[in-house]
């Protein structure tokens, strides 16, 4: 696994020594060759390990030969101009693309060493392990309590009402929403503010004890204060879960993530430690993007 990534770097002719990076900051220029990601796509003991993932929407080739690992207890940020396939890749990880008739996914995506496209892998089980939070908060048209209780109910996680209450209580607490809603659990979920709704969706997701949480621009519909709360929350949640987040805001990526992946027109251009990507990008496209020259 490791060798593959190293090979990529060698063929691309990057000198990894810091000194030469200084003198020749962007040694790699477009055109991009698919599958030739700059930086180390591997991590030790990954929860997700993806290789050569291609997604097509009918004729459209939305992401091309993407390979990347996702580490436990870390936040991976995915950035890139819109339409570059970030959401598409994220949706591969819990097979949400199954719900789009025209979508076709190829390549290998291993969760804990098992291929999620394996015949024996059940998609319901997979999604119970890999939760997802969406761009627009989408609470169900039910009460706050029922929104959180929905997952445990369908999966039969609570033996009785007392246990269900505890799960709801615990999830809301960990999502930082409990103090705000404890007196109105029977109000509809849609009566909350946007930021609260998004935290409700997070609480709903963690109520089923997932291992990975995928977040697709979770803050883009929210104001700065609500955004800050969610960012704090991500830092907390990282203790228990692996998190992959798509974001449009580079500041957010820099604040919340440990690793960053940069996508461009369906290609995964560069992966690396967040600090390194933002201070010292190695690919010209990455540099252009984070310095705001386009995107």
């Amino acid at each position, binding site marked *: 696994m490791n060798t593959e990534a190293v090979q990529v770097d060698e063929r691309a002719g990057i000198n990894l020594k810091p000194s030469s990076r200084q003198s020749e900051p962007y040694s790699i220029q477009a055109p991009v060759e698919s599958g030739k990601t700059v930086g180390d796509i591997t991590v030790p003991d990954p929860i997700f390990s993806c290789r050569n993932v291609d997604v097509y929407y009918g004729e459209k080739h939305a992401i091309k030969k993407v390979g990347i690992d996702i580490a436990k207890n870390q936040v991976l940020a995915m950035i890139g101009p819109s339409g570059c396939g970030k959401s598409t890749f994220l949706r591969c990880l*819990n097979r*949400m693309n199954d*719900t789009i008739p025209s979508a076709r996914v190829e390549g290998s995506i291993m969760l804990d060493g098992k291929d999620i496209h394996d015949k024996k892998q059940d998609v*319901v*089980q*997979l*999604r*119970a392990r890999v*939760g*997802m939070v*969406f761009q*627009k908060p*989408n*609470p*169900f*048209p*039910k009460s706050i309590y029922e929104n959180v209780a*929905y*997952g445990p109910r*369908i*999966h039969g996680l609570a033996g009785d009402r007392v246990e269900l209450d505890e799960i709801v209580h615990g999830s809301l607490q960990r999502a930082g929403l409990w103090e705000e809603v404890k007196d109105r659990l029977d109000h509809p979920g849609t009566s909350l503010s946007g930021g609260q709704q998004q935290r409700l*969706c997070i609480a*709903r*997701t963690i109520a*089923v004890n997932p291992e990975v949480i995928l977040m697709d621009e979770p803050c883009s519909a929210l104001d700065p204060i609500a955004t800050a709360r969610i960012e704090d929350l991500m830092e907390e949640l990282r203790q228990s879960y692996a998190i992959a987040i798509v974001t449009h805001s580079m500041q957010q990526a820099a604040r919340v993530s440990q690793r960053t992946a940069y996508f461009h027109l369906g290609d995964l251009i560069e992966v690396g430690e967040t600090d390194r990507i933002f201070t010292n990008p190695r690919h010209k496209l990455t540099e252009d993007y984070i310095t705001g020259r386009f995107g």
Partner: protein
Amino acid sequence: MTPAALLVALALLSVGAFWIGKSRSLAIVGGTRGVRNLHSLPSHYGFMTALWCALPALAVILVWLVFQDAIILRLVTDHLPAGVRDLPANELSLVLNDVRNLVAGNVGRDAVSEAARGAADEYVRLRGISRMSLTVLTLVMVVCTALFVRSRITPELRARNRVEKVVEWMLIGCSTIAVFTTIGIVASVAFEAFRFFSMVSPIEFLFGTNWSPQTAIRADQVGSSGSFGAVPLFAGTLLISLIAMVIAVPIGLFSAIYLAEYANPRFRTYAKPLIEVLAGVPTVVYGFFAALTIGPALRGWGESFGISVASESALAAGLVMGIMIIPFVSSLADDMISAVPQSLRDGAYALGATRSETIKQVVIRAALPGIVGGVLLAVSRAIGETMIVVMAAGLAANLTANPFEAVTTVTVQIVTLLVGDQEFDSPKTLAAFALGLVLFLVTLALNVLALHIVRKYREQYE
């Protein structure tokens, strides 16, 4: 001239007026080359002349025709022999009916009395005079207006604006017809209903449990209490509607769910229109089907299980009505289900819900207001449905909740009371209007409520 011929003549004259206006406008600017000096196109002057001629004449003709019959009858009545003229009002109206029928050629001359024959001749004579005068009046009006307008045409005349103003007013006029229809329904039905309530107390009508309008006439006890209690009718209507809903709501809802969420596109393109064919079949066909096939079949099945089923059972009518209503429920539910945003479904799938769990607990839950609205509309249809119940439900006003017995409904009674010979002014006839008023108000309330709910629901996801 007969009115139809007169209208044709008016149309031809209007075409003539168009040419007069158009050629006059061209003439005053010296032919086609001077058109740019005209404020409007020559055809606008033509239209203006034609409209100015036709509209007033048309108004005169309509008013004349509306009142012609009443006035002539009045004169004819005065002309009747004294002995006939002094008859009580209802007998006199019978004579006048004979006169009308004779004039219309519905009956032979021998079939009516001497007095009626004379009156009919008088009627025809007066009608001839009236038509003659109308023709002359119309022609004179048209010619005068045409000449007048022609004399007023100048290059500065803003013919286009005037024509357009008239057209706009005509559009406004057309759009008010919907309002006048409602007013007409309320006014006419309510008017007759109030006359009924002056003979039978509304309390008796709304809460009485004995309905036998025929008896009231026969025993000469007009408005006698106990005969116009409409509760069995309301109960029968509700029973049949309920049976229909029990059939239509689950089948309609489940097929909408299947077609919207499960079926492959090919199956959907064929199955959806086919199910909607059920809504296009005339109700009289369902009525025949219910009376001829379903009724006897249910009776047969009932016998084999030892249950006695009336041949005009509420079950047969309700069942067939339910079939008719399936497509209403399914296409409305389909709309509502499709309006549920994908993001809600995604939210449930992302938690690991199966498709049916998503549908049952999220999609249906979200679409519920819309579906309830659709079901209310369907209930209103069931209550107002006439032919199926007329042909397949009974006439006997039984107060029962047993679907195997025959019941009657509001619409059946309206039809029974009004079809065939009827005497106006008898409570029997007027009772139909009272029933109609109740029917109108109930369905109106259901519709307003349903449309309100559906609109609120649509706004929520727009």
